[in-house]
């Protein structure tokens, strides 16, 4: 009987050692380089020329992002006009609180501000400074230091920079996924479709040369299927 008890004790000690080793291993794995799980998204919408009529797409995209983003994530909405690299081009920005209830309130406020901008919008801009907007978004995304960075570009990608602006520079979009949404075809594209393809290809090349990842989603419904923000 004593022999059995001793054996049991020995087995229990061995089990204890094993559990301790597993726990220590798990702790060591856990104490490694902390993974940044937060996500950041910047919605850049073009309000120049005829594209200004596509504001509803921006509203839908913002709502979709608000439903997908969670506590600790960041979201900003900006617009592209004659000169986009200014603070006034940001309509709303927020980093959601850690508490889900507070985050829900922040989402409501954010939604109201975006809707307010859409409702009060009157005059489309003459030029479209897409590069300035991208630089603005890049700065925001770098600032929030998120694990996943997304830049949603709602534009026809037809850049028309005023002559006074200097935009021939590197974009530095490392780790940023640029998603071009609803790239509308212009009248000239109808006459020469190659122009449209060239425009898309040049932006793709520019983004990838600057360290970013390029994606094109023309239909908003496909955004979820593409697994963006997952």
């Amino acid at each position, binding site marked *: *009987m004593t022999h*059995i008890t001793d*054996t049991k004790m020995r087995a229990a000690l061995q089990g204890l050692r094993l559990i301790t080793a597993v726990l220590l291993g*798990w702790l060591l*794995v*856990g104490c490694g380089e*902390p*993974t940044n*799980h*937060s996500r950041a998204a910047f919605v850049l919408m073009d309000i120049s020329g005829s594209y200004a009529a596509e504001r509803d797409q921006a509203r839908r995209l913002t*709502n*979709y992002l*608000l*439903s997908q983003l*969670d*506590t*600790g994530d960041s979201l900003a909405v900006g617009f592209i006009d004659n000169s986009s690299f200014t603070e006034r081009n940001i309509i709303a920005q927020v980093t959601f609180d*850690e*508490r*889900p*209830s507070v*985050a*829900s309130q922040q*989402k*409501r406020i954010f*939604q109201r501000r975006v809707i307010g901008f859409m409702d009060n919008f009157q005059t489309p801009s003459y030029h479209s400074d897409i590069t300035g907007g991208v630089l603005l978004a890049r700065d925001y995304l770098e600032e929030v230091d998120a694990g996943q960075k997304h830049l949603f570009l709602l534009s026809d990608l037809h850049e028309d920079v005023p002559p006074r602006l200097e935009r021939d520079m590197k974009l530095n979009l490392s780790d940023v996924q640029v998603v071009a949404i609803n790239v509308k075809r212009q009248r000239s594209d109808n006459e020469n479709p190659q122009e449209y393809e060239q425009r898309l290809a040049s932006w793709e090349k520019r983004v990838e040369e600057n360290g970013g990842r390029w994606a094109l989603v023309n239909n908003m419904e496909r955004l979820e299927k593409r697994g963006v923000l997952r």
Partner: protein
Amino acid sequence: MFTDMLTIWSASPALSLAIWLVIIITLLYAGRPHAHQLLRSTGRAIHGTLRVASGSIRRLEERVINRNNDVLLAQGREDAENAIEREFTRVNTIVERDLSQYPVLHRKLTETLEKIETDYHNSIENKPLPPAWQEVMDTIRNLPSSGDPAVANILENIKEVVENSHEQTLKAYQDDTNERHGILKSMRPEWRSLNQNMQKVQQTITGLEDSAKTIDRRMDEYESMRKGEDKAVNSLTSSSLTQFFISGLVLTIAAFGGIINFHLIAMPMAEMVGGNSYIGSMPTSDIAALVIIMVEITMGLFLLEALQITKLFPVIRNLDDRMRKYMGIAALTILVIFAGIESSLAYMRDLLALDREALTQSLAGAAEAESQFRWIPSIGQMMLGFILPFALAFVGIPLESFIHSLRTVLGLVALGVLRTLRVTLRLIGGSSNHLSKMLVNLYDVFIMVPLSIERMVKYRLENASSVPQETAEAETVVSAAEEVEKAEREREAAASKSKPQSKRKSRRQKTDEDELADEDLSLTAGEA
């Protein structure tokens, strides 16, 4: 390269191939003894090595079997001891509860019996029977009246007096009989009481008898375990496996309950510890929810241990009763507090879910719907949050059974693995042995032409030189074979007398000898 090699002897490939074949067959014939030796020794070496390994595994298997049996019997003995102890405690309780009142019962029975006896005596002290008045009356009636009115009057008076006396005596006798009936009637409750008391005694005695039978059965089982009988081992193994599967099933159900509980509190936990912090790849809120569930299970284990329902922690079991009671109260209090926390978290979850639903509807552009009867799921979630911790607290009971039976199951699994390994090794060893024999024969097939020539030459040489010697040699060979056979029989008989072996062992040995005998290939004349 191959073509160059092929046509090295001649430009004609067929001729060159023939030359190559001749060379190869000659070389193979020349190297036949060494090749045979190489093949057979390799086969034997593999066979022998694997047999030794198989033997070692067999010994290990026997050790595992013995060890499993020891553990199983020790557990069984412990359980049987506990069961017997429990039965004795039950007997003790019966004796203390019922038979401690036996003096009172005995006194009551004695008093009842005394009273019944007194009543009985009272009932038998009856009045004397009335005298034979009828004869006197008949005599007076039959007297001759002789016509004298005075005599007739006197006789009439005497008759009346006698009749009156008779009636009075009869009435007294009837009263006395009634009185005795009354006494006997008053004895009925006493009889009933006596009957009830006797039934009580019978019940007690029957309970004791049942317990005694159970103890006898347990003692038989214990005896069987003590002797280490196969019947006991098989019974314990079967019982252990049943326990393992049943407790495994209950633990699976408990695990599902734990998952439900986790989902109930994980979301509101983000409200308390933040939803953006991670430990490793897991959100801190999830870990906090898991910790709460684990603590609840632990408190449940402590509570069951303090109540002496389970025996997982010897430290708690060895505490004195008062400390164990305090510990039980502390565990129960913590469990109740955690159940309250879970209940409130479940309510918070409901509120958060409602808020999130409203936000989703708002983002989708739909009008926020007025939800009716929202209080029903709220109350349901709160109740679930309160009850689940207590349900999980009972997980200690199947856990104990699972841990105890796991040892047996692991032992059986280890035994199965060892047995499979042993059989595999034996199979590989036997196959390699037979393969080597097959290769030896195959080798001879390739060089059958020179071998046939060799046999032919040898036959002719033998025929030419040793015809007269054949008879003598044959006789010598036969007598030598008989002697060897006789010696072997004697040796076997002596061995069987000196070492009585088990049937199985001798059979195995015989098989081994046969195998070894098969292995000894007789050398051909060429090899010699």
